[in-house]
């Protein structure tokens, strides 16, 4: 680690802050992470304040603008849990209902299907003629995994997850293969492996993870990230 004399001034300030807060043991990377967070936070606030100032038709950014920017950003990203009396009231109401009885002999006890992740999240495109499939790509804005499915239900959309501190993240639900209790499922025709990624979602960390899962799940040799207009034979059913 660089000796304190050669560190830049803001790193020294950060070290001092950590010391004042009573934190004595930390890895050297922590200082860099804290500095990055500080920079991003401050620039976000100042940018917001600039927007508010121009909205109020002021030429300079005012202290009021900064205060407003801080407050809005606080309500948006740094939310804190609800207050205690609210929680106690909600809990009191929730705890009044008796515990539901358990039905016997129901197999796997799962919520109703619309709350589970067991449905397919793709829709089979009808097979085009082999000759002319030059129509442009149809980008379906969801990640599809070819799987044997007996349910032609509407696909579940990728749902955005709840707010997190560092911007939007999209949770893309990967369907499981049918749960083990589907012995009665009628095998459908061998499906086409359609895997499409909405280009605007690329770059989010989760998509990378899920594509890994896709490539793991698929046992076919062909790359799963094929574009739609390529020939649709030679896809192996999973």
């Amino acid at each position, binding site marked *: 680690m660089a000796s304190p004399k050669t560190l830049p001034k803001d790193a020294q300030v950060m070290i001092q802050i950590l010391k004042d807060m009573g934190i004595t043991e930390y890895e050297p990377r922590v200082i860099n992470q804290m500095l990055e967070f500080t920079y991003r936070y401050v620039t976000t606030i100042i940018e917001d304040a600039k927007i508010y100032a121009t909205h109020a038709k002021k030429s300079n950014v005012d202290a009021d603008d900064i205060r407003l920017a801080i407050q809005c950003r606080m309500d948006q990203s740094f939310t804190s849990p609800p207050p*205690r009396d609210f929680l106690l009231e*909600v809990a*009191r109401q929730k705890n009044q209902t008796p515990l*539901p009885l358990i039905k016997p002999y129901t197999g796997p006890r799962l919520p109703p299907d619309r709350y589970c992740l067991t449905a397919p999240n793709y829709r089979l495109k009808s097979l085009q003629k082999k000759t002319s499939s030059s129509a442009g790509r149809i980008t379906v804005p969801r990640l599809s995994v070819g799987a044997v499915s007996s349910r032609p239900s509407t696909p579940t959309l990728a749902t955005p997850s*709840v707010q997190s501190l560092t911007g939007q993240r999209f949770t893309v639900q*990967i369907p499981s293969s049918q749960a083990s209790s589907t012995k009665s499922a*009628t095998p459908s025709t061998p499906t086409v492996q359609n895997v499409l990624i909405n280009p605007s979602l690329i770059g989010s960390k989760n998509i990378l993870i899920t594509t890994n*899962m896709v490539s793991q799940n698929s046992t076919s040799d062909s790359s799963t990230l094929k574009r739609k207009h390529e020939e649709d034979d030679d896809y192996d059913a999973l």
Partner: protein
Amino acid sequence: MRGNETLLDFRTSKFVLRISRDSYQLLKRHLQERQNNQIWNIIQEHLYIDIFDGMPRSKSQIDSMSGSLAGEAKREANKAKVFYGLLKEPEIEVPLDDEDEEAENEEGKPKKKKPKKDSMGSKSKKQDPNAPQQNRIPLPELKDSDKLDKIMYMKEATKRIRLGPDNLPSICFYTFLNAYQGLTAVDITDDSSLIAGGFADSTVRVWSVTPRKLRAVKSATDLSLIDKESEDVLERIMDEKTASESKILYGHNGPVYGISFSPDRNYLLSCSEDGTVRLWSLQTFTCLVCYKGHNYPVWDVQFSPHGYYFTSGGHDRVARLWATDHYQPLRMFAGHLADITCTRFHPNSNYLATGSADRTVRLWDILNGNCNRIFTGHKGPIHSLAFSPNGKFLASGATDGRVLLWDIGRGLMIEELNGHTDTIYALKFSRDGEILASGSMDNTVRLWDAVKAFDDIETDDFTAATGHVHLSENSLELQLGTYTSKSTPVIHLHFTRRNLLLAAGGCYSPF
């Protein structure tokens, strides 16, 4: 500052102080003599003085009970009756084997040679007055596979080693290599066949501890082709092509902070910083349900010992009770002043213990959501809890390095075990409750004599009445052994059915 919830709690709720009547009179007289109304006003406004009659406490007693963010527990808080007994084991017919011909019996009765259809246990054992009714909370009935599991459990129990101060358990340590401090949660199944790790890169990995590999169930097309009537249908539904030593489960959006296997080894739960709890199937190795309710990081999740129910506790200071087939929680337990870091079910599944960053442990009744016990005494956030197998005692470990033992029935601290120098992340009682093992960040596993700690509390009724704590100064005598690893903090402990101790941790490799 205005919006900070902890501050608001501090300003609105009163700090509880327990003081004897004589001391209180002295204090009052002293302040009135001095005409010092300021202090008196502060006391009136912000302190709740819980007066008890009797001897004032010594400094060590006061020190041991203090530490919580809201003062100590009021006496009324710990007065409710708690059913800490265990539920009766159900009658199971054991098929006659060549080797052992035991029929399932309630505890203590002589074994009969042939299994009998009618329950001989109904007359034999009176209802334990401290045990809850069988139907106090609805519990799932046993399926055939569960009954087979129970028979296996009984068989293993007969081969169990009895532990004691002169017969310490062997410890088998599972070190997670190449985790780069990313290992955040570990769980082992009850029969010690699977181990799962939750990581900071939001994955959950499951390994098989036994030589038997992990297999996924076949796809639906193949399942329709197999012969359903064959003897080994449970083997045939498995797909041999997917056999592997470990499986990786993707789905979470943030580090996975808690995992829990279901008792029937079909499901795995994981909770993470993204505020969700996910249920994974261990037959298809995919995610089945995502329970959304906490909007803040969830720090701990645990299945109930009977399956079907599970709890989660997180940053929003509320613990929730869920059932696997309801997408919303069934109960919410609010009352803590800071995050809930640890949640544990009682062996009879009727009560839930939560440890929190406000340094208290609370015992909640699942039936009506009431808080039956508040235990104060730790000087730091609590990170681990363990119920003794007989259901009477609770052990808790915190960042201050102390393990505290509590008597649930009376609501008192029994013992304070000093020895660790860093946060205790793992606590486990041995299968018969004779030894308590604790694992901590200081890379050690320590074994404590639980029998000795618990056997001298039956005598003192006087202490129970006043709520005083008589701590014996012999925590060193209770320590049976200290075992250090080179640089691996211990984050999980598990006693196998035969009382072998398994420990797990991630190898610490600074670079």
